[in-house]
C-alpha cells in the first residue's frame, strides 16, 4: 500500500472541506479522484502533500507517517498543481534545473534528468524558450516535466488538463499512462469523467468532502442501476418497428422522434443484435447507430441526484 488515509478531516473555519475520508491506494495504480468543483479533491491533495495540516486522521505514504517523515515523503512525491507553477522569466530548461535542484539533483545526473523530462513531455525543441511564449498546452506539459525529474514513486496530478486543446490533452493522458508503466503510482484528480474512466484503474468519487463511492470504473457502473440507450437514425419511418422492439427482452421503452429511433434497455441486457434485426426485418435502412453504455456521469447522477458539472 503506497497511500493510506484514515479518517481524514480538514476544516476551513466553519466549512468542513474533507469529512472522514478513507483511501487506500496500491502501488502501481492510477487512482482517480473524481468529483465536482468544491468536492474536496484539491484539499485532500493539499493535505497529502503537506501543504495543509490535517485537523484529524492519519496519513501514511510508503508506510511512513506524514507528520513525522515529511521531508522523506516529499522526496518521493511529484506534484503537478492545478495551476501552472513555472517562472516566466526563466527558460523551460532553467525552470527544470531550478526545480530539480530542490530535489537534490546535481551534476551530470541533473542534466540527464532534465533532458529526459523535456523529451518525455515533447519540449526538447523549446527548451530555450521562455514559458510566457508557450501555448496553454505547452505550459501544462512543462508543469508536468517539473514534477517528474526526480523519478517520484507517487505522482499527484491535480486537474492537469483544464483549459487545453484536445491534442495536448491526449499527449498528457498518454504521458500519465507511460509514467505509470515506468513504475510510478499516480493519483489523478479531475472533474472530466471521460478522462478518469479512460486512464484510471481505481476511482473514488467525492462530493461535499466525502468519498461517496470507490472501485474500478466497471464496479462503479455496475454498482448503480443505470439504463442503456440505443439511438438509430433511420432512412424512413415505420411504426411497426416500435411494436417489434418493445417485445425484445430487456427493452423498457422505445420511441420515434422524426427519423430518430430511441430504445432504452435495462443494464447488461445485451440485446443490440435483436434490435438491429427487428429494424432490418421491416426493410428499413439504418443510417447511423449509437449505443450508449452507462457512464461515470450517470453513476454520479444516480448517487447524488445532480450532474457532475453542476
Amino acid at each position, binding site marked *: 500500500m503506497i497511500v493510506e488515509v484514515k479518517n481524514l478531516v480538514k476544516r476551513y473555519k466553519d466549512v468542513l472541506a474533507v469529512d472522514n475520508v478513507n483511501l487506500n491506494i496500491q502501488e502501481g495504480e492510477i487512482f482517480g479522484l473524481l468529483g465536482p468543483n468544491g468536492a474536496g479533491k484539491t484539499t485532500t491533495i*493539499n493535505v497529502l*502533500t*503537506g*501543504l*495543509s*495540516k490535517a485537523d484529524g486522521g492519519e496519513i501514511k505514504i510508503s508506510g511512513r507517517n506524514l507528520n513525522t517523515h515529511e*521531508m*522523506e515523503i*516529499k*522526496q518521493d*512525491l511529484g*506534484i503537478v*498543481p492545478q*495551476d*501552472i*507553477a*513555472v*517562472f*516566466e*522569466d*526563466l527558460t523551460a530548461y*532553467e525552470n527544470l534545473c*531550478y*526545480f530539480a*535542484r*530542490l*530535489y*537534490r539533483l*546535481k551534476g551530470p545526473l541533473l542534466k540527464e534528468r532534465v533532458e529526459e523530462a523535456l523529451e518525455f513531455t515533447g519540449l526538447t525543441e523549446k527548451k530555450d524558450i521562455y514559458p510566457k511564449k508557450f501555448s496553454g498546452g505547452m505550459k501544462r506539459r512543462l508543469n508536468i516535466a*517539473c514534477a517528474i525529474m526526480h523519478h517520484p514513486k507517487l505522482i499527484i496530478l491535480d486537474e492537469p488538463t483544464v483549459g487545453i486543446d484536445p491534442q495536448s490533452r491526449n499527449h498528457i493522458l498518454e504521458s500519465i499512462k507511460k509514467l505509470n508503466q515506468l513504475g510510478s503510482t499516480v493519483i489523478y484528480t479531475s472533474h472530466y469523467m471521460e478522462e478518469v474512466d479512460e486512464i484510471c484503474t481505481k476511482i473514488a468519487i467525492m462530493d461535499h468532502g466525502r468519498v461517496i463511492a470507490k472501485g474500478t470504473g466497471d464496479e462503479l457502473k455496475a454498482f448503480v442501476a443505470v439504463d442503456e440507450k440505443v439511438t438509430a437514425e433511420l432512412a424512413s419511418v415505420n411504426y411497426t418497428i416500435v411494436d417489434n422492439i418493445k417485445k425484445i427482452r430487456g427493452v423498457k421503452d422505445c420511441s420515434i422522434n422524426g427519423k430518430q429511433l430511441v430504445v432504452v434497455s435495462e443494464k447488461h441486457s445485451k440485446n443490440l443484435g435483436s434490435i438491429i434485426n427487428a429494424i432490418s426485418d421491416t426493410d428499413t435502412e439504418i443510417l447511423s447507430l449509437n449505443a450508449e453504455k452507462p457512464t461515470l456521469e450517470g453513476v454520479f447522477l444516480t448517487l447524488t441526484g445532480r450532474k457532475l458539472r453542476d
Partner: protein
Amino acid sequence: MGILNISYYTFLKNIRDWKYVALLIIAPLVTIMITGYSTSNIDKHTLTTKKVIAVYIEDKGDISDKFNTLLKSPDVKNAFDIRFESSYNDGYNMVLYGKADTFIYLGKGLSKSFNSSGNSGIKVYSDNSVPAAKLLVEGFENSLNTINAISGIKSKPVIADVPNAVNEVSVQPIGKTPSGLDRWTYLNMLIFLFYGALLGSFGVINGVRKNTLLRFNIAPIGRYSNVTGQFLGNLLTLFLCSAVTIIASRLLFGSNWNGNIVLILLSFLFYSSISISLGMIFGYISRKISLCTVVILCVNVLFVNATNALSPDVGFFKYVNIVSPHNYVYKAITNTVFSGADSKSLASVAALAIEAILLFVLTAAAGRRRTA
C-alpha cells in the same frame, strides 16, 4: 544547496527584468545628473559665512565719501556683510553684544583733519585683536598714504604693516563640505535603492499569484530555505546596483566617494538588506502589489525628508531618524568622506547592521507560514 540555488535563480530573474535595472541604476543616475548639477552652484554660495561689519560715518568730507565708495564695491560686498548704522552707540553695541565682528567709525571732521594733518583717525572696534576688517581699513589708509590710528575696545591700538589692497575671497575647501552634486548623489541613491524593496514585495506576491511558491512548499527543503534564498538573491541584486551606481556617478559626474570605501559599501549592504526585508514583510502581510508600492513610497518620502541632508535633526524628524536607514547611511558616508571621522561612520554602520538583522528575523518569521 537549496538556499544558494534559490538565491541564484532569484538574482537571475531580477537582472533579466529591464524594469528593475531602469529603476535601480538608470533612474538614480539621471536624477543625480539633473538635481546634482542644478544645485551645485547654489550650494557653493550659501555655504560661505560672511563677517558682519557695522559702520557709522559721521563725517561728511571727501575721505568719508571715498571710504563709503570702497565699502560698496563688489569685492568688499562679496567678502563682508556691511551694516550701516545710524549712530555711534548703535555700531558700538553691535560689537559689544556680539552681533557684528567689527565696528568701523568715521568721526566728525575726519576729512578736514586728514587734509590738514595727514592723520585719518578711522577707528576700528573689535574684541578680536586682528579683525578681518582691520585689513580693509589699513589698506584704505595706505592707499591714502597716511598713518592710521586704531583703537581696540579691550586692547591697545594695533598698528601693522599691511598690504595696499583688501580683497578677502571666500574659498570652499575641496572635499571637506558636500557640494550639491555630492549631496544629491547620496540622496538619489538612497531614494531609488529603497524602491528595491519592491523586489522583495513583488517576489513574494508573484510567488503566491503565479503559484511558484507552491513548488517550494512541496519540495523537500526547510521552511526557511525559500525566504532566505529569495532574500539573498534580492540583496545581491540591490547591492550590485548600488555598487554600479557608485562607480557610474564617480566616473560620469565626479561625485565624491573619497572616504573609507569598506564603510561606504557596508552601509549600502545593510541598507539594501533593510529595504529588501521591509519589502518582503509588506508583501507577506498585504499580498497586494498596489498597497506595498504605496506604503514603500510613503516610508521612503518620510525617511528621505528626515535625513540631515534636508532637515535639521530636531523635533519629529529627530525621532524618525532613530529608525531611518536613510539617515544612518547619509551620516556614514558624509562622516567618512568629508570629516574623515571613520569612528562616527562605523557607529552609523553598526546601527544599520542591528536594524538589518532585526528586520531579517521578522522577514523569516513572516515567510514561514504554510501556503495552500
